[in-house]
Each structure stands twice: as structure tokens, then as C-alpha cells.
């Protein structure tokens, strides 16, 4: 597979996953604010913190009102992490590799993009639920189409790696932000908790039902354990790492844990750390610190992907490039 094509499919998949996650975060938060009633301030600001764009947001908007945050996270094309911008980037990447994508997949991605682009923010700012559902369902449909109609070869595995790394990142971010708000220090473990808010955190990771089936009642430590270390829940960080590593090993042909490329080694190091960690240790060390370190390592994996598979190292120098490569 062409390096350029691998790069594009990886980013197509990452951006689509990002759009889906942002849509879910907003949707869950909307639902939550309805439960909590009026008057509770600062409900919306943490949502911006999750994507790491708080500074930019405050530069552009006066006050973290529901409307401002919604515009910023869903529609603002200047914000590279907004749903609209992510879908545009996913589609632009897909457009450069249409020849390898199943036609239905391209069409579905094109349709969600056109839907969001064609939506007037003023018209949905009060009722964004349907649009957010459309984005989430569209993303699921695309993943399903890829699963069922694309050969599970190199291209598919690159899409898997992109999606799983993005998902691990997003789960870690929402856990980080919400945990900090709900439980500022380890000393407070065991004090009465706000069930509604903790449930909302689980829903943000689509984990509410599966958590209950596997862990029973809500406790902060169990939630952290489930979202970080569970090996079978598809949005837990550990699950994402295990399966990204599996796909990477399919790409290179090296058995798991024995890869020689930078990408494999970075991912393998990160994954093995999860294999031998207990949630109590994490909480004791500080959840925030743990996640911070995780994100740094995850960035190294991404760098490794670039170095190993995507970087176009010219053998002959070819004058000027004429085009910007969309990512």
C-alpha cells in the first residue's frame, strides 16, 4: 500500500472517530444539564477542556454558554477539533483515497459531511440531538461498512489503528476532566458521590450499560478501572491499545511484542504497562498524572506511526511540491 494512502486512511479514521466522540460528549452533556436543571454554572466549560482547546475558545467567545460551546465544538470550522472540521478533514482524506474505499463507505461519509455542512447552527442550537445522533450513527455505519465490505488487509488495519488510538485518547481525556471535577483528590474516595454526574461520565464513553453488567454499582475507583484497564470493553484505553497493537502486527507481519519498527515498539511499551497496573496504584499516584503520562506516550506512538509508515523520504530531490497534503 502506498505510504500516502496509508497516511490518509489512518487520518480519515481518526478524524471520524474524533467527530463521533465530540458528538457524544455534547449529547451527554445536554442530557445532563436537563437533569440538573437551570442555574448550575460551568457545566459547559469542561467540555471544551476535554478537547484541549480552552484557551482558543476563550479568545474567540465571550463566556462558556451552552450556545457558544455548541457552536465552537459542533460547527466552528476554525476549530480544527469541531465536528464540522473533523468531518471535513475525514472526507478530504477519504477523497484522496476513494479508489481503495468501498463506494458505500465514501457515500456515507460524504452524506454526513454534507448534512453537517448544510445545517444552519441557529436552527439546531436548541435541538441538536438529532444532528448529533446522525453523526454518531453515521460513524458507526461507516465502521460497520468497513468491517463488512472491505478486505481486512493493510488498509483496514491502518484505519483500525487510527480509530483505536483516537478512541483511547478521547476516553482518557474525558476521564481526566470529569474525574478531576467530581473528585479533586484521592482522599475523597468513599465520600458520598453524585450518581447523576458519574453516570454521565460513563455515558460519554458509551459505557453506562456495560459498566453495570460487569461492575455493578457505581464507585469512582471501579469507573476508573473500567475505562482504563478493562480488556473487553471497546472504549477502554487498554482494549484500544491491545487491538491497535494487534492490527499493527498484522501490518508488519511481526508477532505481537516482537516488532522492530518504532511504531510497534512505542505501542508495545505503552501496552505492557497496562498489563501490569492496578487501579489502586493509579489512584494513589494520581489519576491526572497517570493520564498525562499516557497522553505523552500516545503522542510518541503517533510519531512512530509517521516515521515508520507514512514519511515520504525522497530518494531523489524533486524540486518544489505543488500541493498541500490534507490531513
Amino acid at each position, binding site marked *: 500500500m502506498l*505510504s500516502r494512502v496509508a497516511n490518509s486512511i489512518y487520518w480519515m479514521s481518526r478524524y471520524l472517530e474524533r467527530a463521533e466522540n465530540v458528538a457524544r460528549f455534547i449529547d451527554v452533556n445536554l442530557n445532563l444539564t436537563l437533569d440538573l436543571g437551570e442555574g448550575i454554572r460551568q457545566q459547559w466549560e469542561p467540555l471544551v477542556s476535554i478537547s484541549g482547546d480552552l484557551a482558543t475558545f476563550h479568545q474567540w467567545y465571550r463566556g462558556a454558554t451552552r450556545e457558544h460551546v455548541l457552536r465552537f465544538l459542533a460547527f466552528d470550522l476554525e476549530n480544527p477539533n469541531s465536528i464540522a472540521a473533523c468531518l471535513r478533514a475525514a472526507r478530504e482524506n477519504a*477523497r484522496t483515497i476513494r479508489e481503495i474505499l468501498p463506494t458505500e463507505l465514501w457515500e456515507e461519509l460524504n452524506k454526513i459531511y454534507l448534512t453537517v455542512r448544510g445545517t444552519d447552527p441557529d436552527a439546531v442550537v436548541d435541538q441538536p440531538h438529532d444532528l448529533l445522533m446522525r453523526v454518531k450513527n453515521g460513524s458507526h455505519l461507516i465502521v460497520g461498512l468497513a468491517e463488512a465490505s472491505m478486505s481486512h488487509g493493510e488498509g483496514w488495519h491502518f484505519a483500525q489503528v487510527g480509530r483505536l488510538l483516537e478512541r483511547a485518547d478521547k476516553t482518557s481525556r474525558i476521564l481526566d476532566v470529569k474525574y478531576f471535577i467530581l473528585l479533586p483528590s484521592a482522599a475523597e474516595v468513599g465520600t458520598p458521590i453524585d450518581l447523576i454526574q458519574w453516570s454521565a461520565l460513563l455515558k460519554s464513553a458509551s459505557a453506562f450499560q456495560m459498566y453495570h453488567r460487569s461492575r455493578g454499582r457505581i464507585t469512582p475507583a471501579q469507573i476508573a478501572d473500567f475505562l482504563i484497564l478493562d480488556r473487553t470493553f471497546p472504549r477502554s484505553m487498554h482494549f484500544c491499545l491491545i487491538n491497535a497493537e494487534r492490527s499493527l502486527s498484522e501490518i508488519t507481519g511481526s508477532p505481537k511484542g516482537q516488532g522492530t519498527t518504532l511504531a510497534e515498539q512505542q505501542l508495545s511499551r505503552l501496552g505492557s504497562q497496562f498489563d501490569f497496573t492496578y487501579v489502586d496504584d493509579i489512584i494513589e499516584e494520581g489519576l491526572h498524572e497517570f493520564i498525562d503520562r499516557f497522553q505523552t506516550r500516545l503522542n510518541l506512538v503517533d510519531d512512530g506511526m509517521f516515521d515508520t509508515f507514512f514519511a515520504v523520504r525522497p530518494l531523489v530531490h524533486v524540486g518544489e511540491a505543488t500541493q498541500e497534503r*490534507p490531513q
Partner: protein
Amino acid sequence: MIEELQRRIVSSRRMQFDSYQTEAFYDEMFDPGGHPRPRARALTEKLETLSEGELQRRQKAADLTLLNMGITFSVYGHAAGTEKVWPFDLIPRIVDAAEWRSIERGLTQRIRALNLFIDDIYHDSKILRDGVVPEELIRHAQCFLPPCAGLNPPGGVWSHITGTDLVRDGDGQLYVLEDNLRCPSGVSYVLENREVMKRTFPQVFGGLSILPVEDYPERLLETLQHVAPPTRGTPTVVVLTPGIYNSAYFEHSFLAQRMGVELVEGSDLVVHDGYVCMRTTQGLERVDVIYRRIDDTFLDPQTFRPDSALGVPGLMQVYRAGRVALANAPGTGVADDKAVYAYVPQIVKYYLGEEILLPNVPTFVCWDPKQASHVIANIDKLVVKPTNESGGYGIMIGPKATADERSQCVEAIKANPRNYVAQPMLALSRVPTIVDDHLEGRHVDLRPYILYGKEIYVLPGGLTRVALRKGSLVVNSSQGGGSKDTWVLAET
């Protein structure tokens, strides 16, 4: 009951065609008396049974389908990456079996002769020495490429993919307007237009036998593999595109997808150890055939334009050594020159000893002083074209131009006569086209696609381009043109 049904049919007939006028033009659907031509009878009957507004609803559904399918072209001069959906009109153009047979024969003859001509030009130039085509015309053709002299593409075929433009004049005669032997585009729209028709308007196909077009990519791949240099196993074919901002990018990716081959940009390819290779996640992989959709002079900065960043340095050397095949071969543009075009009837006669089957539009070559003075004297009646442009650029339409534009054109001809040809103005035939809530005639042309590998294959139908503006004769997508499905009826 039946009476009521008939009444309804009669009233809906009024909806579709009652106000339709063929005016003084050749109409592809109706004869001058307003009766459907035999080839169009079945379709007009179906259209007449549609309920009020149904046609318009189908047209809207088709537009939406095209948008969702992302069938777009990029517009130059707009922000990078601006895509537009190419307007598609639901009423097809219909060609009957007998006429198609003669088109097919005419195109086959033409392509065979033109390939012999190009091969001759880059070798012994017998045709020039015999004085059939003036040598000076060739030497001054902008698309004549001296570095191609002596090249031997497999089988002596230079133009593997051709998209000949045909037009029908008021008297019903079909003419060849341009040969397009370089990188003709548009075939993807032929396939997608049919797809959209089938999705949105399936009932009109019922009871008709229309030749399918879907197998084009398979045949293209066969053609490309046929020209591959000797390799072990199946040759590796790629499509080379200038990139996502090229106006025909959609088509490049479409063809790569349908053939199941890689779509590459220049920077994905590299010359290594005397072969062309592509950079993959598993290292370098050899490429045997390049279906290139970039112009000749951008192919290799070491041979042609040194500022080209779209091509592959060293490519021509590998090509010359016979280690990679290019389709089309570089240098074919020499026969696309409009002054050379004027000599195609003589070219056919010279190489094949046959009279030309599909005639040229009568063409005055200004390079010849006698013809130039005729053109200047009749400037208000003629269409003047630059010899090296395509896509409808630089054309002066005498009867529609202002006095100023005409005298500017005369000056340009005097300053550089080699650069111009002139043709009479044709009354292009028309096809009914949806305009708001009714149908009006709009002018069309037809571009069939011809593949030449082991043998010559003509895709049944081709791209019907339609000038959507009332009275306009310009069908180019960049200038307000759209397209229609083209139906070639099967032999009965």
C-alpha cells in the same frame, strides 16, 4: 375507467411535450413534424405516462444522488479544492443501432489511421516526404515533441485511450470536431450517469434494450495490461494523477477504484535501479504500466519542463528503455493540432487507402495564405479557433462576436496565421432538456471513448454534453455545460 385513464394520459402528455418546439434545429428525439423519431418512441411514451411533476421530482432525486455520491469536478480559479457537482439532465440522448454501427466503423478507421500517422511522424515521416501533409505544419505544431522521435510503443500504438468529439449539424450529418488523443476525460461520467439513471428513474429502462457501459474499466485494464513490458506474472498498473486539485481528480480516482489499481501522484513514484517504483508501506514496488493523466510535458522534469513537480524525474529514460509503458504514449498531441486535424481525410487515405467514413467539419487552415484571406473576408460567418487549445478556450464565434472582437481576431490571424483555423458555424443538434417545469431543446455533442490495445474497442455511447444555457453552443463543463446519459439501442 379506460376513458378516464386515456384522459389522464392525454393531459399528462400536455405536461411533458405539448409546448415543446424543435424550432429549426435537428432534434435527436423528434422529427421536424413533432413526431417522436423511431429510436425515441418508447421513451417518449413512457415519459408521457408520468404524472404531473414526476419528472421534476426525479430530476431532483438525481441531483441529490449525484451530490451524495460525491461526483464532482474541481473549478480552476476558485479556492483550492472547490468542488462542483456537474449538472446532469435526466432526458437521455438516444442513438439507434444502425447509426451506432456506422459511428463505430468510422471511429475505428480514424483511430487506426491516426496511430499510423503518429508513429510515422516520430520515425521516417514518409507522409511529410510524400507531401501529403506539409512538413512545416508539423515542425511548428506546439505538441510535436522532438524527444519522442524514434520511440517504439508496443504494437506501434500511441493513443490507447481516445475521446473523439462528434457533433451533428442541422442536416443530420455527424462530423468529427476534435480527436482528443492526449488525455481525454469524462468517461467516468458516462458510467456514473447511467448509474444515477438506474437508481432514480428505473422505469424508463423497462422494455428497452440499451447497451451496457459498465464494463469499461475492465476493458481499460485489459488494454493497459496489454501494453505492459514483458514482466513476470501480472503487470502492475497505476493511474497517475496531478492530485486532488485537478479538475478531473474524481475521474482519476474513479478509474483506479474500478480497475482496482493504485492511484498515484508523481511524488509516490521514483526511478530506482532503472525501473519506476512506487513507495509503499512495505518499501519500493515496481510499476509496469502508468495510465498517466498528466500532460506530456509534465511527465519528466529531466526531459521536458524542468519546473514540473507533478512528474517523475528520469521516467522518460525508463520508458525509452522499454521498462515501463505509458498510456497514452507521449507525443500524441501532434495529431490533435487543429491545423493537422484538417488533413485527417488525407491521412486516412494515405495509410489505409480508404475514403474517410466520419467526415471532418470543413476547416480552413490559416497557415495557407489563400485560406487565410478567405477566413478574413468571411470573418463574420466563421468560427475561428486557436490550433493548440482545447476545452473551448480562445474561440471566436463570428456571427455572435462584436465588430471589435472580429477585428482583433483578424489581427491575431495576420500576426500568427499558423496558430488559427476556421470552420463554418454548425447548428448543433438538440435534445429535450428539463428547464424548470417544462422541456426545452438544448444543444449537445457526443464524445465516444475508444480503447486501442490488442484491438480497437469503442464504448457504446459515450458522453453527451449539453449546453444548458438557452441558445448556447458551448458544452464544456467549465462554461455552463452539463451532461446526459447516452443510450445506444441494441440490434433488434
